């Protein structure tokens, strides 16, 4: 049973670290407000 507890802690550790790395990676790739404006205009008008 005690190994399960440590496994749980390990899973939690891996999960949180993966989330933190994901945030760190996405921080650089987050769109700016100008890019969002262009994306929306392109999405709306490309079908015209």
């Amino acid at each position, binding site marked *: *049973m*005690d190994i*399960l*507890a*440590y496994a*749980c*802690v390990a*899973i*939690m*550790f891996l*999960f*949180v670290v993966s*989330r*933190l790395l994901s*945030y760190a990676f*996405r*921080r650089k790739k*987050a*769109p*700016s*407000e100008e*890019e*969002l*404006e262009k*994306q*929306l*205009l392109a*999405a*709306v*008008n490309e*079908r*015209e």
Partner: protein
Amino acid sequence: MTTTKKAVQLPVLERSRRNYDRLRTCRRCGKYTILPGESCPNCGRARLVPVMERARSRARRKMLNEILFTVLLIIIAILLAQDMTQIAIAAGTGLILLALLVLVQRRMTGRETLRQLSRMFRYDHATIHDGLVHDQSTGVETVRSGKDVEGYHILRQTAVLVRNDRLRLALLSLLQNFRLRSDMDLELESLITRDFDPLVADYIGEIARLKRDMIKDRAIRYIIANEPRILEMENGWNILISVASAAVRMKRYVTMYQGFIRRYARFLPRERFVRLYHVVHSDPALQSEVLGQDMESIRAELYPSDPAFEPDAAGAERP
């Protein structure tokens, strides 16, 4: 032939910082609309929220799920622990990781919201498009029911996102029926079409008479590019003179569009020619150009002893 223009009061289009600020989505049916109003135009429920708010709530929900999952793992680890040491390790590690996660999430909320918004635009683009088409139809129906001004305002709001010449010409057709005034909330740049249309040229000419400050590069270039076709229009000559008159307010335009201004300098109203004369004479480079020579010959011919052309009688507008 003159058409009777209606005296109207145009509603002011409130400007938003970003074009997507005005876009809203229904929390119930997922449809989109850019029009104001309490109820969703699709399902009728009062569950419309700005897309930014929807994106923010999605980002927060996602982050909350991560926190809840971490808390669940902590609880499971504690329940599975055999002794106090293991409980302490599980709880201590869990709390440290949880605190770290919460800290990073707080710093990333803004960016995650923008990411969620980007996802919404990517995956819902067809729904957004359909919503705006519906908004446009609402505008057209409103015009057809006789409510010109209201219909114009609806179409104008739709045009914040929908950028096509069909909508621009629809708006210009409506504006043609209104008696425009300088105190109205009017637009110009967003209504200039890619190809030539007399409605656009007419409107530019009207704006040049009413609000010359609105005449900028794009409008001037449109007029110059379509000059021959404008000259074929009934009031084409007036349009060209009006735009030239507006352009002389800034030295930059006089420098950039010398050829155009030269062609109509002789026909400018006196006060606009005075303005142009002083702009040219304030710049030695311009003065030495053909435009400068033209200014002198026109002045000599039309205003031989007019004191307004003396150096100390420069126009009030800034060069």
